[in-house]
């Protein structure tokens, strides 16, 4: 299997923003990501992302004077962006490979990983779009009809949403069309479903689960929980990967895959 160059992948990922059809149809079947370089890129950009995000959204640059606390202006929070960058790619890969395994779509694990990287590139561009908030463009607060500890749950809509969500939806739709010939409505539906699940369930999950854990007396907040979610994500990715990679041994890998999926479901239900 040919190891693809990270430069080529980044170029393709950025091109996909403008020409998703061309790029999604060019995902090689027999190539694999350079996982070492990928990890370095994801982590590094996660750090850059954190700096740009804090500056654009909260008006501050993270500094070493911040404490190593789990709370708002803590350095742990910066580090969650580093981990979050990796987990974003990882979860997209898990979602795609689980879907294609479940639906028996002709997409290899490596192709799922590559497609997930292209989706990650859209996420990676978000803080650059958010820089327009520095020039006075306001953010919007969207209240969800849900209460957490008697407080309404709200999402802060920043400018990059208007960039990332449509682009991600189009990329997913094009991916499903060009790879599996899904009908347009089906492709749009699955694309939007994945986006909604990612933003409203996966990303919001700590907001739900952290207060419950805190109520048990565990001093953990939502940012620390992200780490736990990341670990679950890694386990799930590994299981699905091994499963799709041809080593279809039900007792071990199947059980691991199901266990992590149940773990996710438990979190969501809880």
């Amino acid at each position, binding site marked *: *299997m*040919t190891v*693809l*160059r990270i430069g*080529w992948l980044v170029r393709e990922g950025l091109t996909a923003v403008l020409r998703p059809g061309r790029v999604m*149809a*060019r*995902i*090689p*079947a*027999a*190539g694999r990501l350079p996982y070492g370089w990928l990890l370095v890129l994801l982590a590094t950009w996660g750090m850059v992302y954190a700096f740009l995000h804090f500056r654009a959204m909260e008006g501050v640059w993270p500094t070493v004077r911040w404490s190593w606390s789990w709370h708002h202006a803590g350095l742990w929070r910066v580090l969650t962006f580093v981990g979050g960058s990796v987990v974003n790619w990882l979860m997209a890969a898990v979602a795609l490979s689980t879907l*294609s*395994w479940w639906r*028996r*779509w*002709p*997409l*290899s*694990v*490596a*192709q799922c990983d590559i497609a997930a990287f292209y989706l990650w590139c859209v996420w990676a561009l978000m803080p650059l779009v958010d820089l327009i908030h520095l020039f006075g463009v306001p953010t919007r607060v969207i209240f969800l009809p849900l209460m957490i500890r008697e407080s309404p749950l709200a999402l802060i809509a920043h400018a990059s949403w208007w960039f990332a969500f449509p682009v991600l939806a189009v990329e997913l739709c094009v991916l499903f*069309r*060009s*790879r*599996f*010939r899904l009908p347009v409505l089906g492709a749009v539906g699955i694309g939007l479903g994945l986006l909604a699940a990612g933003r409203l369930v996966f990303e919001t999950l700590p907001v739900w689960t952290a207060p419950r854990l805190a109520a048990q007396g565990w001093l953990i907040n939502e940012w620390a929980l992200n780490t736990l979610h990341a670990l679950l994500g890694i386990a799930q990715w590994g299981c699905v990967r091994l499963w*799709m990679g*041809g080593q279809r041994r039900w007792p071990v890998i199947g059980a691991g895959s199901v266990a992590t999926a149940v773990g996710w479901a438990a979190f969501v239900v809880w």
Partner: protein
Amino acid sequence: MASWVGCAPGRDARRGAWRAAGLVAALAAAWPTALAADEQKLARTAHRRGVAFLEQAQLPTGEFRMWACTDEALKDCAMENEALITATIAQGLAVLPGGRAEKVAQQAANFLMSQMAADGFFRYHLKEHPLSLEQPPTLEDTVVNLMMLEALGREVPDVTAVLKTYQTIGGSFHLFAFPLADLQGLRTDPAVREQLSLRVNPAFVELLDQTEPVANANIQAYLASHGQASEPLCTYLVGVAQQGLPPGYSMFYGSPYAFLYAASRAWGRGATCLKPALSEFERRLLADQHADGSWGSVLNTAWAGSALLWLNHRSASLERAVAWLAGQQREDGSWAREVAWSLARPPLWFGSEELTTGLAVELLARYLMLREAER
């Protein structure tokens, strides 16, 4: 010339007439050469642009793309992960050694090497495809890919001996490298079918005992290139040709020229037992050529023109085909996507710009090689 026209009939006039006739004859004799020179220039330019297109279309892994479409117009398509198309294109690129074409072909060869099993066999789908483990190796893919790798100087196993174990009593081969003994009762005994469904994906069970003429011609080409051409297989292929290649002659290929190309190549590689059918191949190819020099489409023209070249045919037909083909080339150096083969169930049509371009490039390269050799 003007003075001759004005001459009264007489000895001088007759001499003049003879001289003029000689001049016309000389011009006529020189015409194909002049025409060939033009066509060579055209062919060289078109070949260079076609190679440039393939170079930029090749994926970093070395593979080329193929589309599987739900409509014959090849509009509603999804990617098909298979290796045969890469070998088919690389074969055309490898005709003229050196330069960018060889570089692209070598990269394709790297990709094919990564797809080859230890015993030298290939499956239809790539190793990474979810169905790959559920299907037996395919004979056509194996021989075409191996021929291409051998042409590029790669060390690959010689599978002739194993291949012959899959030959039926009638001389032909089935689609898959699957033990013939295990297929007994496939059509009559449900238990056998059920048993086979446990070994291979049910979608492939129906195909296990199927025979396909173009695949068999390719197998003959491989055997012949190893000095092992099979007489019974020739008998089968000649029989197929004698039936006139009507629509539906092949379960995959709609075009008769796909068979004529593969069979001519088998002969060109040393399957001398095909000789009884050669004149019929040539007659059919020349008779079917349209006035514009094509055989109706780019793919057909590429197959038919290359078949004529494999048959060592020399005539202005080739120049006309090359000129027409060059005229169909698009701005980016490619030729448009056309249906190369299809499946009945589920109904799918396969083709890609890369495949059409690869086959067109092969015709141009063979034509240029012939003209270079003549010079």
